């Protein structure tokens, strides 16, 4: 009997429980289900906004610093100095990190939202509370739906916005980089290190903290400024960085002349054997160049005080006809600023002792020959045997002409193959072949046909055994000019044998700013390679 009563009681109890549940569902859960969903969706959307937008600011979101520029977020650094230690631009790296953090935190929040469900799955609790559980489940679903839809929309918006910004900013950077490069190329802007003679179109610039930025062009590190590791700004592009930072040699790290990399850079090495007349030609030519620049309202000034002193002394010596022999130890570089109106240039001339051009191995150390773009080869007519035989009649003549110790082609043959082997683009290099000591030569019958015009000089050289030199020069170089010069008398731009002639020709081809010639002197090239 008690079993039957127990069974009846149990049936009654279960029925009552089910009825209560049904009533709860019908009268409490069902009427509020709609509101539950509405509230859940709105809550989810708000939550997603808060979680996603706060993710980049979270303390555990990675920060890409100046030390991460070689890290996995960036393509491999260029060879050489690598990427500068500057803060990467937000759009170039940090943006991706931040989007990742948003997605990660969003997922994490959803997981946290659903994790209490694990506790509710306890079977006994469910047995008692499943109608309430259904309500909670409904709310959770609604929150999740609102959060997911909002989260995906926000992420899509953020990714699109950042991608567009990166695209626009990247294009702006490339444009600025191209314009800067084109302007500098048009000006033939470059930097030549006066210490190691390295030539570069991209000098480094040191931040106040001491870090040298080796590539200030717009890049992933910033379009308008690069932010140094120390936080200080470094303006991008060579011209803007150069305004308030001293340029540095990328090779030896020495401080370069102001304007290096921005101004036109003209480098003119002068080759020739011992006693050919290189030093004389350089000082006479520079002085004549200075006179023409000044006459046209411009300037030509040695860059450093020591150079100015040397320039004055050199000019004095050449005028007095007693030039000191150049020491074989150290080639002398002389840097001058040339200005004309708003155009400015740095003019480097290099004078090495003739011994350094006597053998190929000696020329290998002459770094200033690399990428010169322009060269002068000095031809001493008195070192041409048939000329010397006819003109130099005794020790007195010898003493006055001080003929070069080697015939003209020696320096050429010791130097040019070395240049070619070192990869110099001779097909883009101009060569001025300068016959010097004209004052001593022109009155002799052997020089009857010799006039200071390119074709006449060229023909005279060919007629007097120098045809090999002429052929080689015209084969090797982009353009060859021929000049007849007296370094002792040609001080004025309009002198018949002015030392300015070769420099003026090279200057015009190398974009050195010069006022137009005052006289109708024929200056020009012949023998462009056929």
């Amino acid at each position, binding site marked *: 009997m008690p079993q039957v009563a127990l069974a009846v009681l149990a049936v009654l109890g279960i029925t009552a429980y089910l009825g209560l549940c049904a009533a709860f569902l019908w009268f409490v859960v069902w009427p509020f289900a709609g509101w539950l969903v509405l509230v859940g969706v709105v809550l989810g959307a708000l939550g997603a906004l808060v979680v996603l937008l706060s993710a*980049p600011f979270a303390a555990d979101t990675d920060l890409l610093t100046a030390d991460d520029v070689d890290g996995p977020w960036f393509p491999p650094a260029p060879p050489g100095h690598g990427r500068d230690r500057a803060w990467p631009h937000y*759009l170039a790296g940090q943006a991706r990190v*931040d989007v990742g953090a948003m997605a990660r935190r969003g997922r994490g929040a959803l997981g946290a939202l659903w994790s209490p469900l694990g506790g509710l799955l306890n079977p006994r609790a469910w047995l008692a509370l499943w109608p309430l559980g259904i309500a909670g489940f409904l709310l959770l679903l609604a929150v999740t739906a609102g959060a997911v839809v909002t989260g995906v929309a926000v992420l899509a918006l953020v990714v699109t916005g950042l991608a567009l910004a990166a695209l626009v900013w990247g294009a702006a950077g490339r444009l600025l980089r191209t314009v800067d490069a084109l302007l500098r190329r048009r000006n033939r802007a470059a930097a030549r290190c006066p210490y190691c003679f390295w030539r570069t179109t991209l000098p480094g610039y040191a931040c106040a903290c001491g870090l040298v930025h080796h590539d200030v062009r717009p890049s992933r590190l910033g379009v308008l400024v690069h*932010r140094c590791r120390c936080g200080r700004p470094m303006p991008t592009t060579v011209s803007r960085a150069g305004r308030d930072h001293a340029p540095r040699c990328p090779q030896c790290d020495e401080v370069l002349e102001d304007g290096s990399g921005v101004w036109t850079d003209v480098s003119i090495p002068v080759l020739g054997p011992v006693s050919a007349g290189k030093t004389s030609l350089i000082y006479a030519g520079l002085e004549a160049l200075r006179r023409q620049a000044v006459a046209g309202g411009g300037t030509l000034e040695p860059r450093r005080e020591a150079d100015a002193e040397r320039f004055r002394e050199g000019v004095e010596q050449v005028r007095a006809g007693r030039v000191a022999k150049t020491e074989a130890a150290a080639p002398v570089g002389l840097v001058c600023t040339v200005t004309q109106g708003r155009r400015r240039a740095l003019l480097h001339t290099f004078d090495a002792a003739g011994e350094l051009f006597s053998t190929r191995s000696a020329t290998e150390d002459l770094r200033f020959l690399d990428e010169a773009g322009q060269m002068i080869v000095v031809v001493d007519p008195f070192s041409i045997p048939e000329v010397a035989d006819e003109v130099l009649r005794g020790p007195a003549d010898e003493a006055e002409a001080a003929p070069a110790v080697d015939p003209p082609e020696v320096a050429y043959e010791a130097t040019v193959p070395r240049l070619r082997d070192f990869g110099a683009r001779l097909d883009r290099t101009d060569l001025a072949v300068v016959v010097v000591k004209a004052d001593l030569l022109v009155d002799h019958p052997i020089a009857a046909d010799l006039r200071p015009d390119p074709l006449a000089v060229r023909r005279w050289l060919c007629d007097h055994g120098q045809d090999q030199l002429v052929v080689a020069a015209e084969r090797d170089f982009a353009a060859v000019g021929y000049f007849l010069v007296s370094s002792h008398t040609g001080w004025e731009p309009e002198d018949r044998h002015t030392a300015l002639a070769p420099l003026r020709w090279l200057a015009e081809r190398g974009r050195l700013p010069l006022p137009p010639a005052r006289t109708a002197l024929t200056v020009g090239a012949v023998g462009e390679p056929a």
Partner: protein
Amino acid sequence: MSPPPAHVRAFRAALVVLVLLVVLVALWQAPWDGIVAALDPWVDGLRRQVYL
């Protein structure tokens, strides 16, 4: 870890402003009349149930 520098914070703030702006514009420009009209029968049903 050092705090992010100003330029990073500025970009992040700009990002937040951008998203909030878009949300505001979306809320402002949303066709509320249509939404309300579409929801009306449903809300009506809810109301009737509540006062049942």
